[in-house]
């Protein structure tokens, strides 16, 4: 579904991704963890060219992502959920969800809105359909953002630290929605600091530091018997 081959990314002189090679299979739930500044957000942003790799190749569903085909390919393959939600503030919740299906995927407006209600049911916010995002709590906004991502019916959803900007008491409602999604045949890549979520949902966990993937494995192996010293140090700090 997603393949990264020899991806490097520089910001000026800063080498933030160092030879990333990664393959994510259809339906796989991949969780990416690592300290701040380790390059994990940059890596997930390279998957839909929010950041363009300085060198290397990114493939989505077998097609190489290029500057030229990016809009079209991304439209057909991926959705993204952001740390800051990035809902469209001038639209209602319903309009936020229906916008891309109507304008990009040719779904008739009425049908798109009916579908939007179904996605709102999934995230438990049907009653908020006609309000503007600014009236919602962070957790609710993020659930709307997830509904918006679902509405385009992509096979891949990228989550870039979806709970990092939330109040502690609203984190769980968002994680619950994501756990429910993980039962579906959607390919999920999740950058997160939520280790409980990683343990519960991940098919595979990747640990990144200093721009490289240092360790990867099944969550049981990863959390119980990490082999890399840097991983051990990181885990010992956050798992108590």
């Amino acid at each position: 579904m997603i393949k990264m081959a020899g991806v490097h990314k520089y910001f000026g002189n800063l080498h933030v991704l160092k030879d990333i090679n990664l393959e994510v299979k259809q339906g796989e739930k991949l969780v990416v963890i690592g300290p701040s500044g380790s390059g994990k957000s940059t890596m997930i942003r390279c998957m839909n060219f929010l950041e363009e790799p300085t060198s290397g190749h990114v493939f989505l569903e077998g097609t190489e992502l290029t500057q030229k085909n990016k809009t079209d390919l991304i439209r057909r393959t991926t959705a993204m959920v952001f740390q800051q939600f990035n809902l469209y503030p001038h639209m209602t919740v319903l309009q936020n969800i229906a916008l891309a299906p109507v304008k990009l995927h040719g779904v008739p407006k009425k049908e798109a809105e009916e579908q939007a209600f179904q996605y709102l049911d999934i995230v438990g916010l049907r009653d908020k359909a006609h309000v503007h995002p600014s009236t919602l709590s962070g957790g609710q906004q993020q659930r709307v953002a997830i509904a918006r991502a679902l509405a385009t019916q992509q096979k891949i959803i990228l989550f870039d630290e979806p709970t990092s900007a939330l109040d502690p008491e609203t984190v769980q409602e968002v994680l619950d929605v994501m756990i429910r999604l993980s039962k579906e045949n959607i390919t999920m890549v999740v950058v997160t600091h939520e280790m409980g979520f990683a343990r519960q949902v991940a098919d595979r966990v990747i640990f990144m530091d200093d721009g490289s993937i240092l360790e990867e494995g099944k969550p049981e192996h990863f959390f119980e018997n990490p082999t890399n010293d840097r991983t051990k140090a990181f885990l010992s700090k956050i798992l108590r």
Partner: protein
Amino acid sequence: MELLQSIFTYDNTMFLLEGLRTTLFFAGSSILVSIFFGMILGLLRNYDRGILGKLAAVYIEAVRNTPLILWILAIRFLVPIPANYSGICSLTIFETAVIAEIIRGGLNSIPLGQFEAAHAQGFTFFQTLRYIVMPQCFHNIVPSLLSQVITTVKDSSFLWAVAIEEFTGKGMILMGRFASSSQVFLLFASMALIYFLINFSLSLIVRSQSGKKPKLAPAV
């Protein structure tokens, strides 16, 4: 009272009202055209890295840093078009540059996350502008645009300098016909009052608009 009656005879009042109509028409139409061209220039200056973006920047800076009266005189005497057209033209040339900067300010107030969300959904750049960025931009700049309408209503009085008969121009013509200085003085005061009433009511609209519409910040 007699003095007032001697100034505001039926004919004089109609004469002035016609000027007022011209003023409002000039201001309104030049603002509308300026919003169109200002949007194009603002977008080019902000997002075009090529020659068009540079040209937009040169135009905006050149016009914004020169006095309006210069443009009024230049267009009137260098461009062979009827006086009224030249009036609207010079106002439009000037306002386009100002409004381009207002629109650019509105564009720069849109958080980067909005562009990223649109990109991640597969919107093209123009679709992003059309559905996501410009609606928020215009929502945010409504107060600035309305204040610019006020400025334009006032600035259009410069057109008197090239004998265009807008409100101030008509008033000046009337004053030339009056014999007594108190008539002239009173007409001046009345005209000032009318400018004030128009612009003050516009600014009340501005205020109620900016109070009513919360800025569309992303709620975090």
